[in-house]
Every structure is written in structure tokens, then in C-alpha cells.
């Protein structure tokens, strides 16, 4: 199976956040702040596990910087880079 594109990763992460982890409304977008949306220590770990399950990519905790966790797009960029380096 081909690795997901960057745009697909954004959609995957956004869907995980919206349907599994966060109680957010339609105002929540791919560029919404994850911290403001309620992402906390437990939710971020659950997010990383869900991303690994779908993409096979594990995001090490050392990469959990404020920049990478700013929104779904920035996290997808981080996952995409890890995926690219691994391939």
C-alpha cells in the first residue's frame, strides 16, 4: 500500500482528532490550535497511537514541540517528514 500523501495525512489526523479524541464543533478546522481545542497529555498519546495504527509511523515524544503540535496540518507535516525519511 502506498504511503499517504501529505494532504491525506492532514485528513487522517484531522479525522482522528474530530471523531475519536476531541469534542469539537464545525468551527474546528485543520488549522485550529490543538491546545485550545483541549488536546492534553492523555489525548496526545492516544493521538500518536492512532496515527501509528493508521500509518505505521511513530512520532517520538521528542518531536512533540509546540510547533509540531500547533494544528493538524503541522502535525501532518511532521508525520510526512518521518515517513519520507523512513522510506
Amino acid at each position: 500500500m502506498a504511503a499517504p500523501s501529505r494532504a491525506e495525512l492532514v485528513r487522517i489526523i484531522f479525522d482522528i482528532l474530530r471523531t475519536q479524541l476531541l469534542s469539537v464543533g464545525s468551527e474546528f478546522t485543520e488549522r485550529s490550535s490543538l491546545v485550545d481545542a483541549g488536546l492534553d497529555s492523555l489525548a496526545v498519546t492516544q493521538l500518536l497511537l492512532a496515527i501509528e495504527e493508521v500509518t505505521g509511523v511513530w512520532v517520538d515524544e521528542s518531536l512533540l514541540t509546540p510547533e509540531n503540535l500547533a494544528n493538524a496540518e503541522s502535525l501532518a507535516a511532521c508525520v510526512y517528514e518521518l515517513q519520507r525519511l523512513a522510506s
Partner: protein
Amino acid sequence: MSAWQTAAPIPLTGADCFLRAFDAEARRRNGASHLSQLVLRLGPGFALEQFCDLLAQVSAANPLLRAPVRRPFGLLPPVYDTLRARREAAPSVRFCEASRRSESVPDVFFERLNGTQDLRRGELLCFDIVRYAGGHEGTDLAMTWAHLLFDGSGSERFVEWLAACHRGERQPDDLAPGEGAGIAMGAEAATGTAPQRGGPRARGQRARAYQARMASFAERPPRSLAGPLRRTSQALHYGVETYSKDETLCVVARAQQQAGFLTPVLFYLAAAIRAHHAVFRQRQLRAASYVVPVVANLRPKGAPSAIFRSHVSMLWFQVFPEQVEDFPTLLGELKEQRLARIREGFLENGAAAMDFARWAPSRLYARMAERVLKGELASFFFAYTGDFLPGLSKFFGAEILNGFHAAGVLASPGSAALLCLRAGHLNVGHVRQQGVFSPAELSTFRLQLRRDLLGLDVER
């Protein structure tokens, strides 16, 4: 008054029932209730009369605050019996004047934690207020509650709501069901059940998996500084060390760098374990392992969260002395355990196990926990609650100079480390049972904690 506040008894969550069991156990063994406390150290200008008036209105509008906690017919799952809430059980305010303010917390706050509140009579919440020099030197306020009325997050939300009521932005009777008790009315309230995922069989399997994990700790049983559970009157005391802004910046940066942004809790936990380990070494004791529970908030993320009842599960960590000698090794081990437990669904398993506490008599449940851990409940209790009331700078007209959580700790384990941040300062609270730490051991504990938090001896 909203419908949820009067319509029917409100069921306790599984976590509430678990805490109720510990309340019964603490009273039976140590003659004290299992209480939690939030302290506000306020500047001048606290509006005492307005506070008392508003509290009376809040209590009248929210019977949950004075509702007896009991099992209907002695058999059914415990409820807040709001229909039988008594005015006499309304949150009390004990007030006293003092001439001078000091760094340490007033003794009346410790006395409160060492006392009892009768859940069956609806004694759930009370306040102690100490005013200094007629208010010119400020006021200290402690809110103390039966541990099941709020969890830590809920208690801060309650304080925020009281402050908003005082500012006229909220009303004493405006809590919606989801915001108040975190429940939807209807079938759940009528049947006395709470949301549970999966059928009884799936929940039973989860609870058994949780128990099996707990039982595995007994292969190298934990030890606390106070020794196995015993009968002795509770006489606890606590101290809070407030780090300077520069020190706090250093600690927070280290925590984020080493444990991750949003996940710094394990950094603080590692430091607390090593501080206890240092005292074990000083006493020339060797624990087979250290076992520490860490509460996890199970509220939906991003939604307005519930104030009342506990919405938590617990992660348990077990580390061995050989893993504790070196900080990075310990932190790495804690990270691995955290990930493994979340991956295996340990939090959900814990929630399922605590749901069974709805049905099991409280003493039976507490005994089970004791038996599994070979006479110890844990090596110590720990909490890192992040920013304390981050959006609140004033409370009833007075500036909040500092604030933190404290909590009762049973005669065994006899020690609890409670950390939080307030306005750029790290507060390190240490609750300990009288006699568990000698002055020299307290010094060792405090110094080791500082070393690890600030990275003062990175060579170790």
C-alpha cells in the same frame, strides 16, 4: 433551579465509588475522612460577606452540595440523594482572624484535613478562612471537600464559577446538567447508571485485566515510608515550596525538553520518585519496588467539562530501585510504561474496574486493593495538575497571590507530592503524615527534588 438539580438522585461515578471506599477505609483506620483541599492565598480586599451570601445561594440552588451519599435500600449503587439534601449540611464557613501572616499555611487547614465529614449526612464541602490584620495583610482561604464531590479539575472549575457568579457573569442556578454533574438526564439518572462502554461481559474482562495488572505488582511488592496499612489517628501536615520565576522557567523548560510538550508529568513524577528513593537510602531501607498511581482526566477534551463528581481513571507505575539511580533511565522507563498502559487500554480497564465499586461493599473493595499490594496501597501519592486556575487573577475582590492543591494521605503511604504551576511559579507541595519524615529526611527529600527538577547534578 435546573431540572438536573432536583429531578432525581444523581449516581456516583465508578471513580466516586472507589473514592467512597477509601473514605470508609481512612475513617476506619485513621479516624479521618478522605478529603481534598484547594488553597487560595489572597491579597487585601476579600469580600467575606459577599462570599458567604453567594455560597448560601449556590448551596440552595445546587442540592448536590449537601446531598447525603448513600446506597438506596442499602444495596443499589450509591447516589447523591438530592431529594433528601438538608439545609443543615450546607457548606460551612469557618472564619478566624490572625494578627500576622506567615509563609506557612495556617494550622486550621491541616486540622480540617485531619477531621471527618459525614457523607451519609451530606457533609461534602466546607471553607476555612483566615484573615490577617483585619484584612490589610490579606486572607488565606481553604476549600475542603469529600474527595468524591469534585476531582482536581472540577474543583478549579467550581472556584472559577463562584468567581464568575460574584462578577455577575454567571448565576448560582445556571449550571446545565453536562456542566454541573457531567450527566445527561433521563434514563441514566433514572436508573442510577453512568455511561459505560461495552456490555457487562466486556466490562468484566476489562476489570479482570486491570486486576491482573495490579496483581503483577505483587511479584516485587511496593513499599512506602510509613509501612503497611495500620490503625493510627491521622495527623498530617504539609508544606509548599514555591520556586522563583527563574527557577520555574528552568524546570518547565527541562520538563518539556525531556518529557515532551503537553506530557511533562512524567518528568515531575520521576523527580518525586527519586526524592522518596533518597529517603529510603538515607534510612538504609531497600524497597523491592516503588508503585505510584497517577490520576488521568477522562473528561471529553474540548467540551465544557463537568464540575461535580470524579471523571478520572488511574495509571499505575511500578519501577525498581535499580531503575531509579539514574534520572534519564527512570524517565525512559516511565515513558515506556505510560505508552504500554495506554496502548493496552489500561485507563479504560481502570474505569471498568472502578465501575464494579458501585456494587461491591466499600470495605471489600479497599481490602482487595490492600491484599493485591501486600499491605501497601502505594509507595506515595502523586499529582501534577499543570496551571492552577490559569484564567483567574482575582477572587471576590482580592488578588490571588498564590494557590495550590493539597490532599489527605492515609497513614500509609503517609506521603504525597502535589505539584502545580501558578502565575509562573512552581508550587511543590509535600503532604506527610506526622512522624514519617525526620527533619533530616525532609531536608534530603527537598534537596533531591530540587536537584532533579533544576538539573543541579546531571552527572548522577
